[in-house]
Structure formats: structure tokens, C-alpha cells
């Protein structure tokens, strides 16, 4: 149905809510990228098959008699425990569900409403039936991600039933563009893409340009290793982001918009395509939106996998069909962005915040988070933490809460070592930073940045030199190659880091690393280049002893760097079976049967084959 006036949206919402209420049981199978990889599609198919034989069961939303709704939702966030299945109205969350569990779920839970103990989440002896009670969720403040995992991401009606496009309606019919910009400015919403630039100010700058052709661009080119906040929003609740873009367009007088999504996010692209098509059909995107004078057209542009295309000017160049390389500023994107026209460029999460602010007001938004960084922030929590996944917490939440309360602590209860924040542009925070509030300003003071929100937790078995090498390798491969410091400098830094982890580094190398890092930070062309050396500079500062152990003692304190490992055979444990010697590819192990064997360090290539094959755990890595 077309929504050709304000009232029609209300009618549509009431109808959609009524339809949803008819579903006495709703099964939400996580169809985020992680759970799909875990086989959630087969669970969906199996449950559909099981349900189809019962009378009055509809697997399609919107039919007359719908008692059970089987939905493919977006990411629930608790990726560590996937595939996830949520069953309403009981709010049961089943974890690590397999296709073989479907029959039991059908008989016990769907037909009788009984929870299945073994599929529930357990922690510290407590079994959690309701999703909302699980500490991972209970400690979060899910505002932007509220609908993710709770609605069918491919059905606009479910978004509308949950208040979708209500903020747009409010903006279009009760607010002037200036009022909208003022509200966003008052809320002090800051860009969630990493820079933390005030969104309202950005919009104001675009709105006051003389040029009347303006563009709205959404940056969905989430390229940080380990970050997937934006993907989850695009996959789980695309309409919230689209609504934010529409409001932005109306506020700054833009007629056309582009969503730049990584081609590596095929599901996000598909869901966005579906969402735009459905919104267009309902006159929520296109000409005369909701019968008003406001028209806005939206296109999806797939990025070809360049990390640098997340930089504003490289992104617009890429949309224009040019090679994605950042350009010098000024002119800034707000003055001359896409096709050299004034352009609002925000990221997915920023846009997704907009409808909430319009609906609830700037005071409400400022009541969440900190003074300087209001609202919430989504983080992708990965690495050596028990509960990896997607979380949303108020700005200013400290690391301790994120790692220990939400993340459930370090895997295998190891000791916390560091956390890499902000991906390859960010820095390392250490145990003394655990109580540091995570917001734009306090992280900046600490020499790190929120970035797009990737959090990689590291325990004491992580070698910080190797971490620095990993990020430098990423940055070098993804450097656009334009400016000399980034292109050549990161290549040389990588070269040095490789030398160090291979045991060939020198003390001069550490000075050269520092020297290169400072020059790159001071002179690189774009933000990505300027921050490229941060992982090295921050680890070099905090973990200098680890670097020195590598270059002076030729030792990796974490026992992580393969080339520096020293394999030895514990004579007390060795039974002299010769299995190690037989598996050694370079004949470095010798000995007499039934007597302890020995490894010739000079011959050993540190492949670890002996250790893997020892039946008596007699081979250890000396650190």
C-alpha cells in the first residue's frame, strides 16, 4: 500500500502491529552473516518444514491466519553463541542451535511453550531462559540495535510496526529543515565513523551552501579488521538507517543519495536493495514522499574492497567511478563532495541514530552517554574474550565493564594484556586503561581513537610486536599509494617489523620505527595515513620491553613469533618413542630409542610438527 499522506502511515503501522500480534509464536532465526555461516539457513528451512503441516500456520507474515511466524532476523549480536534462535513471546534465546535440534524445538517450545534446557545459555552455573536476562544483553543499552534480531529485516511492515518512518513523518510534517538541524546540533550527535565530527554542524554547513544540488551519502564501507557494527545494522534494521538518510536529505535539501557498501557485504547489499524497493513501493522513498513536496532518490554503490574508500574523499571519488584515493582538502566534502556538490557524508550508525533523536528529542539523547559524547556506541567485541559479538553501550562505558561484564572476561580465564581499539588507525589500551571511559575525547587524550568501533581483546599469549606487524601489513596493503609517507613509509615499517618478528631486528630498527612513525603521522595526506603508524607507536611506547626482547634476546615473550620459538624436549617426560624424529621434516631430532631425544636448534625450522605429534606432551616451547 502506498503511503500518500501522514495518516496513511499511522494506519499502516496499526495494521502492521495487528498482524504481528496475530503471530502467537514468533521464531526469529538469526540470519546475520555469522549465524548464516553457522548454518542458520538450514534451521530456517527445517523449522518451516516442520511447521507447514500444522493447520493455521503461516510462515509468511501478513496472511490472514498467522499463528506462528518464522522469521529471518538480522544479527542478534551474540555471535560467539550462534546460530541463535529467539522465540517470542517467551523471549527464549537458544544458542548454538543445530538442524538436528529443530524437531525438539518444534515439539517442546513451539507447540507447548516449554524451554529446552540444553539449548539455553549457561554461565557460572546459572541458566538463562530469557534473552534479556543474559548478562551479555542485560548490561547493554540497545537503542540503535533495538530492532536488530527482533524483526524480519526483509519486511518493511515489521519495521513500520516498530515505529519505522515515524520520525520521518514527524520531521516532514511538523518540523522545518532548520529545526531538524538544530535538534541534531543540540543533541551533539557525533559521527560514529571514527572522527567524531558533530553531525549537526556538518548538516548546517551543507545546508548553507549556495549550490542547490546536494547529495546524501552513507558510508557503509566498514573496512577495519574485526569490525561489523555497520554491517549488522544494514543487515538487521536497514530501514532505521534509510530513515536517517531521508531526514538528513530533507534537512539539507538534497534530492539524491548514495549508500556505499562494501562488496564483501553481499547480504547487507541484498537487504538494503529489498528495503529500498519496499520503501519505494510505499512512497517512503522516491517522489513526493508521504504525499509531501519532498522527493528523494537513493542508490546503492558497491565498493570494490578498498579500505581507503572509507575515507570521505576517496569514497566520493569511488562513487564517481574514479580510483578511490583521498584528495587534499579544502574543499571539504560539505562544500564539494560527490560530483563536486555539497555532500552530507555520515556513516551507517550515525544515520541510524537520527530517527531516535528526532522522535525522542535532543534532551533524551543527551541523557545517555557523556557530556561531550552523548548517546550510545556499537562495538564489535572480538579476540580473546569469552563472549565475542556485537554490543551497544552508552558512550563513556569503561573497558572493564565491556570486557568482563558483557564480554564475560578473557577466554580460558587468562590474564588481560591489551585491547586494540579503532582497528588499524587506533591504538592499544592496556590494563591500566581498564577504567578509562570510552568516548571520543578521553580516548583522544590517551592517543587512541574509537574508530568505527572495533575492539580486539588480547591476552598474555598475544605478542604485541606481531599485533603491530599485523596492522602494519594491513595498512600497507590497503594504502592507496598516493602520498609518499604512507606508501613508502608503511612499507619500510612493515619491513622492519617483519625483520623483528623473524629475529633479525636491531636496536637501531626500533629508533627507525619511531622515526618513520612520527614522519608518517605528521606528514601523511589523509586521516588513514596519519593514523597508520599509531598501532606501532603505541605498542612501542607501552610494550617497548617486548620489542627489546625480540631484538636483543631474540625471544618472543608471548611465545607467539614462530621464528623465535625454541622447541625443547623435556627429558623427564620423553619416553624415547622417536615419533617426533620421524615427523621432523628437517631431521633436527635425534636420539636412541627408549632414551630422551634432543632437538638440534640450528637445524630446527620451528614448524611445531614434533610438538603436535608427541604422545607424551614432552615437547615444549621455551619462552
Amino acid at each position, binding site marked *: 500500500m502506498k503511503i500518500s499522506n501522514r495518516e496513511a502511515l499511522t494506519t499502516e503501522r496499526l495494521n502492521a502491529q495487528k498482524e504481528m500480534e496475530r503471530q502467537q509464536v514468533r521464531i526469529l532465526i538469526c540470519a546475520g552473516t555469522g549465524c548464516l555461516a553457522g548454518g542458520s539457513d538450514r534451521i530456517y528451512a527445517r523449522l518451516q518444514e516442520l511447521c507447514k503441516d500444522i493447520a493455521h500456520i503461516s510462515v509468511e507474515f501478513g496472511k490472514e491466519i498467522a499463528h506462528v511466524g518464522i522469521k529471518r532476523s538480522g544479527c542478534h549480536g551474540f555471535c560467539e553463541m550462534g546460530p541463535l534462535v529467539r522465540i517470542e513471546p517467551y523471549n527464549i534465546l537458544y544458542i548454538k542451535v543445530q538442524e538436528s535440534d529443530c524437531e525438539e524445538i518444534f515439539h517442546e517450545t513451539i507447540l507447548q511453550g516449554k524451554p529446552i534446557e540444553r539449548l539455553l545459555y549457561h554461565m557460572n552455573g546459572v541458566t538463562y531462559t530469557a534473552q534479556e536476562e543474559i548478562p551479555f544483553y542485560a548490561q547493554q543499552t540497545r537503542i540503535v540495535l533495538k530492532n536488530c534480531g527482533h524483526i524480519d529485516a526483509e519486511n518493511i511492515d515489521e519495521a513500520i510496526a516498530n515505529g519505522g518512518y515515524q520520525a520521518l513523518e514527524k520531521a516532514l510534517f511538523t518540523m522545518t529543515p532548520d529545526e531538524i538541524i538544530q535538534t541534531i546540533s543540540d543533541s551533539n550527535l557525533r559521527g560514529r565513523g571514527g572522527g567524531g565530527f558533530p553531525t549537526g554542524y556538518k548538516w548546517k554547513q551543507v545546508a548553507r551552501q549556495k549550490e542547490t544540488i546536494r547529495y546524501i551519502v552513507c558510508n557503509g564501507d566498514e573496512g577495519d579488521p574485526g569490525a561489523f557494527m555497520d554491517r549488522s545494522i544494514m543487515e538487521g534494521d536497514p530501514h532505521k538507517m534509510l530513515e536517517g538518510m531521508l531526514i538528513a536529505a530533507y534537512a539539507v535539501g538534497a534530492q539524491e543519495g548514495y549508500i556505499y557498501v562494501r562488496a564483501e557485504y553481499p547480504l547487507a547489499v541484498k537487504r538494503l536493495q529489498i528495503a529500498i524497493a519496499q520503501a519505494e513501493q510505499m512512497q517512503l522513498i522516491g517522489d513526493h514522499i508521504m504525499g509531501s513536496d519532498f522527493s528523494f532518490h537513493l542508490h546503492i554503490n558497491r565498493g570494490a574492497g578498498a579500505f581507503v574508500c572509507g575515507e570521505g574523499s576517496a569514497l566520493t571519488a569511488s562513487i564517481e567511478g574514479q580510483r578511490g584515493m583521498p584528495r587534499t582538502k579544502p574543499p571539504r566534502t560539505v562544500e564539494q563532495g560527490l560530483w563536486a556538490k555539497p555532500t552530507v557524508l555520515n556513516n551507517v550508525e550515525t544515520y541510524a541514530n537520527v530517527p531516535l533523536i528526532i522522535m525522542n528529542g535532543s534532551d533524551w539523547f543527551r541523557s545517555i552517554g557523556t557530556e561531550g559524547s552523548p548517546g550510545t556506541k556499537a562495538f564489535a567485541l572480538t579476540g580473546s574474550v569469552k563472549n565475542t559479538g556485537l554490543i551497544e553501550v552508552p558512550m563513556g562505558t569503561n573497558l572493564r565493564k565491556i570486557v568482563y561484564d558483557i564480554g564475560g572476561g578473557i577466554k580460558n580465564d587468562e590474564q588481560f594484556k591489551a585491547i586494540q581499539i579503532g582497528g588499524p588507525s587506533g591504538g592499544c589500551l592496556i590494563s591500566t586503561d581498564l577504567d578509562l571511559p570510552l568516548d571520543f575525547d578521553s580516548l583522544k587524550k590517551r592517543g587512541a581513537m574509537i574508530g568505527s568501533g572495533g575492539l580486539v581483546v588480547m591476552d598474555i599469549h598475544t605478542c604485541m610486536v606481531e599485533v603491530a606487524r599485523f596492522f602494519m601489513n594491513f595498512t600497507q596493503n590497503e594504502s592507496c599509494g*598516493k602520498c*609518499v*609517507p604512507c606508501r613508502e613509509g608503511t612499507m619500510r615499517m612493515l619491513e622492519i617489523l617483519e625483520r623483528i618478528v623473524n629475529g633479525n631486528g636491531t636496536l637501531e630498527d626500533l629508533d627507525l620505527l619511531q622515526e618513520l612513525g612520527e614522519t608518517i603521522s605528521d606528514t601523511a595526506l589523509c586521516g588513514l595515513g596519519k593514523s597508520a603508524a599509531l598501532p606501532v607507536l603505541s605498542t612501542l611506547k607501552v610494550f617497548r620491553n617486548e620489542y627489546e626482547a625480540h631484538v636483543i634476546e631474540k625471544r618472543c615473550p608471548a611465545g607467539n613469533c614462530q621464528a623465535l620459538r625454541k622447541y625443547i624436549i623435556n627429558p623427564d617426560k620423553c619416553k624415547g618413542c622417536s615419533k617426533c624424529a620421524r615427523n621432523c621434516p628437517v631431521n633436527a631430532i635425534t636420539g636412541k630409542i627408549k632414551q630422551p631425544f634432543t632437538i638440534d636448534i640450528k637445524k630446527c625450522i620451528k614448524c611445531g610438527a614434533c610438538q603436535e605429534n608427541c604422545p607424551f606432551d614432552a615437547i615444549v616451547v621455551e619462552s
Partner: protein
Amino acid sequence: MDYITIDHMVVPIEGEKNVLSLIRKAGIDLPTFCYHSELSIYGACRMCVVEDDRGRMFASCSEQPRPGMVIYTNTPKVRHHRKLILELLLGSHCTSCTTCHKNGDCTLQDLANRLAIDHIRFKDHRVERPLDLSSPSIVRDPNKCILCGDCVRTCDEVQGVGALDFAFRGAKTEVMPAFNRTIAETDCVGCGQCRVVCPTGAITIRTNRTEVWEALDDPKKRVIAQIAPSVRLAIGDSFGIPKGENCMGKLVAALRRLGFDEVYDTNFGADLTVMEESKELLERLKSGENLPLFTSCCPGWVKYCEQKYPEFTKNISTCRSPQGMFSAVTKEFYKERDKEEGKETFIVSIMPCTAKKGEILRPDNFTDGKQDTDIVITTTEIVKMIKYAGIKFETLADEATDMPFGLASGGGAIFGITGGVTEAVLRAIAPKQDYTTLQEISLSGIRGDIPIKETTVTVGDREVHIAVINGLGNAGRLLESIKAGTAHYDFVEVMACRRGCILGGGQPVHPGPRTKRSRQEGIYRVDLSSNVRFSNKNPLLTELYDNFLTGKEHKLLHRNLSEE
């Protein structure tokens, strides 16, 4: 007046668009690789990085001057960063300076010297890549590329060709034609402007010096040189002679010392072109067919038009270029004598242009199926030959060109500058050929730097709309507007290079504003001091048309279009 402070000096802001221009105005030669005033700001080399009073570092090329700014160009931090950046560039650059074509003329080498780089801490691990020798005009050596992007932007922004771009990422980044094709497989027109801006030896002229030496050494060959109009004004740059000085006499003397048998002036060929092109214009104006008439002297332009706007090919004048006319006439002239003396006439044309190397290979420029001009060498190449021979060019006494093709008009002389062809043609068709006419034409708006110049003259009872273009990108824009029907012209002169041949792809480089101005002034001085300024009044031409050329005009002076 607004001002900024640069290294404790107060510098007024007089419309400069970036801090770098102000720094240079203040007399500080801040090094750059990627900054060119006529290209878009690129900001990649970071050599021009400076520090302000708050300790902020930025590239001065891409920073707008704000009144009250305080800039330092020589702080310890700036010096350190600049040197390290250069060291990084040198770390990924081959160190075969002594055998490089750009030896002694290379910005990278020069800066390494200026910044006193005595040690490079990085090893060059790159795999050596093959040279691209596919083009008759330029050679691309990817091993020497420092990725400043000057060629990419020149080819795209100025010339509208876009034969080169960046490929790959990170340290693997390279400049290359799409899909790593050879230059010959692209739309490259051979203008050589990429080579003009290239700070290193990554793009150089495809040199033909060896062939010239061989010809000079061959007693059976009658080696004839023709010297293009703009060569004489640029060659002095390489010998410390004041910029823009007419060095024709010295060049003639040097060529004789190198062993050339006859030395002629291409300006004579240009006079022939004026005659033919004027005739063609009047004919087309009368018939109204294939208007506007496009000039055909510039091979870069002809190739560009054929490739990008084939629908306009028929509008291009059928005239050969001055080089082509000269060679065809000369070869024909010496035909009999060659037979008698058992010699072979070998024509070497000395050109400001790399595209001319391609022009002579075009079958439509052949006479009786044979190539007329044997070799084209550029100003830069003849400079190297003169230096090789140890001739002290700057001390040579002026010598005159040989006869019978040594006399040319001022109209022929100005072919080397944008608007010159038009000016010469207008002179030739002017009803009254006097000093007033000359002045009127020179002030009609066809002179000067502007990319697209327009004027209207009356020929008979008809108004003739003329456009004068320099820079192929501008030609593309003009053709688009002709196609769209928003512009109407009867005669259009195009020179591929900005400002014309005086800044051609084969000229000695470092074209700063002073070079540009002095070459412009120089070429008009040649015109002013010519005895004859109207091409049609060149007495040699009258003689030639009345006798030798009768019946052969089409064969020798026009392109053989059936050969295409």
C-alpha cells in the same frame, strides 16, 4: 593588505591560492614533485610540508593562505621529515643515475643533492620491470617512477587523453595504461607533455640520435636538416643563453659542424602551409562544405581528433604539416641531383615535438608510398648531440641557412605559438597587406595564453568565425560544444600543447612562467624582424609555385587520404 608571516618575513597575500605560492614569492624554493600551477592540487609528494606557529604540520601546496598565518619552512621537524620523505623515495628508486636519460636534469637527483642525502637506509627490493618502447614518441621506464602523478594529471586534465593512471595499492602502486597495455595500445597522441612534467627519468623522449649519427657518418647520404619555428627560442635554455633568445644562427652553425650537408628552415614549409590552407579555407567557405576547417599542422591534435572524434576527421585540413610539406618538396627537389651524384637525401627534422616522430610514420604523409622525413629529433636530443660533439654552442657565430629553402616569412615563424597559424592565414587572405593589417590581426584576440580564443573577421561579404585552441582537453571541450550545436565556427586552429609548440613535448624542460613568457616574446620578435611578414609575399614561394610545383601541389603538399 592581508599578509602572512613566512620564516619571520611578512609576505602580502595577493590572490595566491595556496601557501606554497606565497612561500615561493618570498624567495624560498620549497621543493615539490607533484605541484604544477596548471594542474589540480594533488598533495602526494609531501615535500612542501611546513609547520605553523602552533606546531601543526601541513603540505603548503594544499593549504589556503589565511591572513595572520605564521609559517616556518625550515624548522628541525620540517627538515627532518622532508629529508626522510626524500630518503623513502630514493629507497624505492633505481640508482643508475649515470646512465639515466635524465642525468643532470632530474628533480629527484637535484633534491637529493640539495638535501644532502649521503646515505639511504632502505634497500630497493622491487623487481625490475621492462621498459615500454612501443611508442615512437616516448619511453616509459616504470622503474624510475616516483608516483607523483604529474603525467597522469597532465594527460587527463590538460590533454583530455587519459592514457595513464594508477594501478594497484600500497607499495605495489604503479602508473600504467589501463590493463598494463603498452602506450601504443592506448589513445596516447604522443604529445610528450607527460615527459615535460615528469620529474625523473620515468617518461623520456624516444630518442633517435643514433640514426642521425649514422646518417651523418654515411658519405652516401645527403643529410638535410630542417629547423622548426620554436626550436630556436628554446635551445638556448640548455646552454645558459638568456631565455627566449633567437638562437637560429648558432643552431645552423652547430649543425654544419655536426656534419649536416644542408640546413633549412621549417618556417619555409610553414609558408607553404599558409598558402595551401588559405586556399582550402576560401574554397570551403565558398562551398560551405566541411566547416569548420580544422588545422592539420599538429600531429597530436590530428591523432586526438581521429581517435576521439572521428566524425570530425573530414573537417581536418588536407594540408600536410609544414614539416611534411618541406620534406616532400625537398626530396622531390633533390631527386634528380641524387641520381646524378649517386646520393640519397636524408631529412632530419629538428622539432619541439615528440608527436612529430609519429607523424612521419603515417602513410597519409608518404609520397609515392615512401616516407619523406627520415628522422625527427627533438630540441632536447639535438642539445645532447651538440654537447656530445663538444661544440661550445653559446660561443658560435651566427650562420645563415642554406638556399633555396632558407628564406621564410614572419608568418611562417609564428607557427610555433598558439594563434600563429591563424594569424599567418589571416595575413595571407587579407585584402590589404600592409602594416596596419598586421597590427589589426595581432590585436584581434588570437594571441595570448587563453585556452580557447575566439575572433570574427570579414572575408569578402562573409563573417568568418574563428576559434584558436591550445591544449587537447580544451579542443575536446570545443568539439563537444560544436557537437551540441552551442558553438559555430568556420576555422579552428588547434595545437595540442598549451601555448603551442614553444612548450612542446620535446623542448628543454623546467617551463616556469619566465620561460613561457620569454619564448612567447621571442617568437614574436622573430616575426617582427623578418623582412617578409606575409607568407604569400615570400619570393621563394612565388618562384616555386610558378615553376617547380606546378601540377605537383596535391601530391607534395596534401595528405594522401586514400592511404588511410
